[in-house]
């Protein structure tokens, strides 16, 4: 028997821990190193760290800071943000990151996925897709660095990145981000059905019920931000976690 992975997602902005709503209004929550220590003692299944400013500021990952965060993290760590060259990926693996998350670069330079997965294996390359519904209700890729919608067919693009060697796909719903009202389960189901690799659901989780629902709709792993950093209706900052045992029906 295998457990469904439950993955907290930490957003970094200028080396602080933040949380967004619909990819906007980032709110400062505290020190990411401190948050990491708490997640470590809670023995989380896996952790994702996303630097939401790196690509926007045209910067490489901040290796020194990432090293500081991961040096006592005894769980699998995925890192994304500013990853656009093989050399960035090599450095991240060297300092103790297990999976590298490619987002914008997957759209701009699909060659990177192929090369990286050939060298490091598919299992260590995650492609993260930010998806937003357009005014006709159709799912579109959303590239947040330029705040532009990309004119690519989402499902053709997903097929393409899978064949290039993406080992896992994070499906992040821009519309549901930070809303804590449930995942976009239609989106999760259609993506899960179109690929063989594991799909990680992200965007919208507000309860254990939501996590379970994503699994029912085909997610191999469930990720969330707000759910693990906020507490109560007034959204007080409190780090918490949901053990994967609780997802077993």
């Amino acid at each position, binding site marked *: *028997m295998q*457990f469904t992975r439950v993955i907290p997602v930490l957003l970094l902005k200028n080396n602080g821990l933040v949380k967004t709503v619909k990819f906007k209004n980032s709110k400062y929550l505290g020190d990411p190193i401190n948050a990491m220590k708490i997640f470590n003692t809670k023995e989380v*299944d896996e952790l994702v760290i996303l630097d939401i400013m790196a690509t926007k500021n045209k910067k490489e990952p901040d290796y020194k800071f990432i090293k500081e965060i991961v040096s*006592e993290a*005894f*769980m*699998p760590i995925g890192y994304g943000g500013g990853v656009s060259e093989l050399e960035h990926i090599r450095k991240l693996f060297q300092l103790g990151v297990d999976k590298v998350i490619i987002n914008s670069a997957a759209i701009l330079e699909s060659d990177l996925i192929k090369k990286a997965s050939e060298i490091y*294996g598919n299992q*260590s390359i995650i492609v993260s897709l930010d998806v937003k519904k357009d005014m006709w209700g159709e799912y579109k890729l959303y590239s947040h660095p330029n705040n532009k919608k990309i004119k690519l067919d989402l499902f053709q693009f997903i097929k393409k990145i899978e064949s290039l060697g993406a080992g896992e796909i994070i499906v992040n719903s821009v519309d549901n981000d930070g809303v804590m009202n449930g995942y976009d389960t239609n989106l999760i189901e259609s993506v899960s059905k179109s690929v063989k690799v*594991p799909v990680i659901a992200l965007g919208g989780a507000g309860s254990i019920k939501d996590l379970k629902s994503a699994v029912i709709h085909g997610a191999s792993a469930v990720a969330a931000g707000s759910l693990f950093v906020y507490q109560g209706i007034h959204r007080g900052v409190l780090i918490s976690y949901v053990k994967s045992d609780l997802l077993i029906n």
Partner: protein
Amino acid sequence: MKNKKIVIIDYGMGNVGSIQNMLKYLGADSIVTADKKEIENAEKLILPGVGHFKSAMDNINKLDISELLREQVLEEKKPILGICLGMQLMCSHSEEGDVSGLSLIDAKVKKFNFLHNEELKVPHMGWNKVKLLNNQSQIFKESLEGSRFYFVHSYYVKCNNSSDVLTKTDYGLNFDSSIESGNIFGVQFHPEKSHSYGINLFKNFIKIQ
């Protein structure tokens, strides 16, 4: 004088950073290298590894350390811990690239094949349990009640001698998830990524005399 050091063998593949982070956390002196002198002077060896079996063996052969490793482990009886691909490399043969391994242990590496079951994805990725078969183990001393370990692999080890099998794990089939034979230890999971359960395993490995 013998060096009280753990050498993490660096053949250009694998997540050596996190293994070194763990050893540092536990206060153990370690070095990441493929230098022959350092390997000879080491107190213990760790063979890490993530990636393709054949590429890994090619790298090891290029470094010309294959015979040295066999000598250090089989004759000098140095404790060695193979992790993930590192455990597989200690076997005699792998289906991944159809090549020979270091042959430190009489076992073969096979590919997960779940054509009959679409539900089971390959790689086997995530947390799973292990069932201990040897209660005299030097690296599993604590109770495994409630324990779980992090796995990422598409191939698995099949020992020819059941006495070498330390734990078994269920994923489509019951595979050998760790091995122990005298001074030779191998784990298919990533103890450096398995919280307190992995920390215990490293502590025990460090303590071995």
